[in-house]
């Protein structure tokens, strides 16, 4: 069998500190920066990223290059421009960005330099969730080393391009991962989302042109630059490009992260995780974090690409699968999920703020055996109200993804709770 290429994680060794600047450079690091700054026109770099087919790894899959292309011409709106890295990673079941941040901070920095250069940003902020202390210290020390080596600061490598990177540690709240809420948080405000349009490219940090990208998205850039569009496209399956850092958690034998070709099937992924633990059957999967809809055990052959999962009625999301096994109460799981979302609602829009706690309470009621059949209809109603386009941001619709699919797929379990007035699973 051909050995798979793992560009994103090739430098990462489990339980070992990340490569320092020298080791990273010895492994070919910052070569892409040297070849690009002052040599490649920013617009050409943007074009290259468009051609590469790189889709945003924050969950949406939107073309990274096209996102960059929406930045106004610096001459049309002179003044500071920003690149913001979304390292908030709080989606339950998601632990891929941590790997990249802790495992290879220089790769992150190199990706930032290239991307910031492409969009002509002068400052980049890495918004890291506050709980990722190790990632924060490793990033800060890598930034220090890069700055000392002239890879950051003024006139980088004599290219007359200037860039500063600052690490901003968050103070909690899942909503900070929503890109516009993140901007508010970076500005020292309450992390409530902003209306779109205007998109951050037009009015981002402090009203200035800004791009927000996920950690993994940006970590791809050096490899695309160095090895070319064709190579990058050839990495993926199912018509999508590159590799993807997938993850699996739940009752599998070896939960963890796996860098695999984009479009790997769910079956293969679970295989990489060693299959189910003894005595457990796979019941359903949330393919890409808590905000995605369940897939059932008969859908395991779908490719885990943005298009592939969408076709199966869910979303690739973060590509980190959460496995529901046959010995876990699906109602309990949904209750746990909705508890999370109710807690993490930012409180800005009414249906999410007041609807999610209601959902949570109904689920608790059903789980504890006090539910009535009318509660199921009520849940359907509320799920409709919190659906896509109805709330201010995608948090509540994300919450409804698992609920709506769960209400369909686990109807029998719901009714069993109601009829037997108890939960059979504890």
């Amino acid at each position: 069998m051909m050995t798979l290429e793992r560009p994103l994680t090739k430098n990462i060794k489990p339980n070992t500190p990340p490569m320092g600047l020298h080791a990273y450079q010895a492994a070919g690091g910052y070569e892409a920066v040297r070849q690009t700054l002052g040599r490649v026109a920013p617009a050409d770099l943007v074009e290259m990223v468009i051609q590469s087919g790189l889709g945003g790894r924050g969950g949406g899959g939107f073309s990274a290059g096209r996102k960059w292309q929406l930045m106004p011409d610096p001459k049309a709106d002179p003044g500071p421009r920003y690149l913001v890295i979304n390292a908030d990673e709080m989606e339950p079941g998601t632990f891929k960005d941590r790997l990249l941040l802790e495992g290879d901070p220089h790769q992150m920095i190199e990706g930032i330099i290239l991307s910031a250069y492409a969009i002509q940003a002068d400052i980049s902020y890495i918004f890291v969730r506050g709980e990722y202390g190790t990632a924060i210290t490793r990033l800060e020390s890598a930034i220090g080393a890069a700055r000392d080596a002239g890879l950051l600061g003024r006139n980088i490598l004599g290219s007359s391009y200037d860039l500063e990177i600052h690490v901003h540690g968050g103070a909690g709240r899942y909503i900070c991962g929503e890109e516009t809420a993140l901007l508010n948080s970076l500005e020292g405000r309450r992390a409530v989302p902003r209306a779109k349009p205007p998109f951050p490219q037009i009015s981002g940090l402090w009203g200035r042109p800004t791009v927000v990208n996920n950690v993994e998205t940006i970590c791809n850039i050096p490899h695309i630059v160095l090895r070319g569009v064709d190579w990058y496209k050839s990495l993926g399956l199912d018509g999508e490009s590159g590799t993807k850092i997938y993850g699996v958690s739940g009752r599998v034998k070896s939960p963890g992260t796996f860098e695999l070709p984009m479009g790997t099937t769910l079956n293969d992924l679970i295989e990489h995780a060693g299959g189910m633990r003894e005595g457990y059957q796979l019941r359903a999967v949330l393919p890409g974090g808590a905000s995605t809809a369940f897939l059932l055990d008969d859908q395991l052959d779908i490719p885990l690409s943005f298009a592939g999962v969408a076709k199966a009625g869910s979303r690739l999301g973060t590509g980190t699968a959460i496995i529901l096994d046959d010995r876990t109460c699906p109602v309990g799981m949904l209750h746990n999920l909705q508890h999370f979302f109710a807690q993490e609602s930012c409180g800005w829009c009414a249906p999410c703020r007041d609807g999610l706690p209601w959902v949570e309470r109904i689920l608790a009621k059903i789980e504890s055996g006090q539910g009535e059949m009318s509660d199921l209809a009520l849940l359907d109603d509320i799920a409709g109200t919190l659906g896509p386009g109805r709330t201010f941001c995608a948090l509540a619709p994300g919450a409804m993804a698992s609920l709506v699919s769960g209400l369909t797929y686990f109807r029998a379990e719901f009714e069993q709770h109601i009829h037997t007035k108890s939960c059979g699973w504890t």
Partner: protein
Amino acid sequence: MHLTPADIAALGEIVGHYPHKRAACIDALKYMQARHGYVSDQSLEAIAVLLDMSPAELDEVATFYNLIFRKPVGEKVIYLCDSVTCWMLGRDKIARKIQDLIGIRQGETSTDGRYTLLPIVCLGHCDHAPAMMIDDRLFGDVEPGQLPGILEPPD
């Protein structure tokens, strides 16, 4: 409360990261919390003055974020993940065990003031669920039986 010259220098350095002072307010709240365990009204006011914010403006921010404490907490804060994978893999048992050991439920501080137990959203350690964090040390694959060792580490 007065900020020490060292505080002001440290905060000044953070302020330098942003084009506007108030952007440093979350860092400043975390900084004060790291020093005093929580953000007292006095700390809040001191930061507000430093960053040209009103106390109300700063408290709006402080009360929004769950990692900022506006009330005193124990010497150590135990953050026990309550998100989906950890829940599936037994985080409730861990919570019960902690209650057995030090007598606190979620949201409570032990009477000796040593521990506060808080639920936390997914720690990004799901491949090692159930996970928990004590201050900034991360623990994974936690078994109830390991808790006495974790909570009272041998010196």
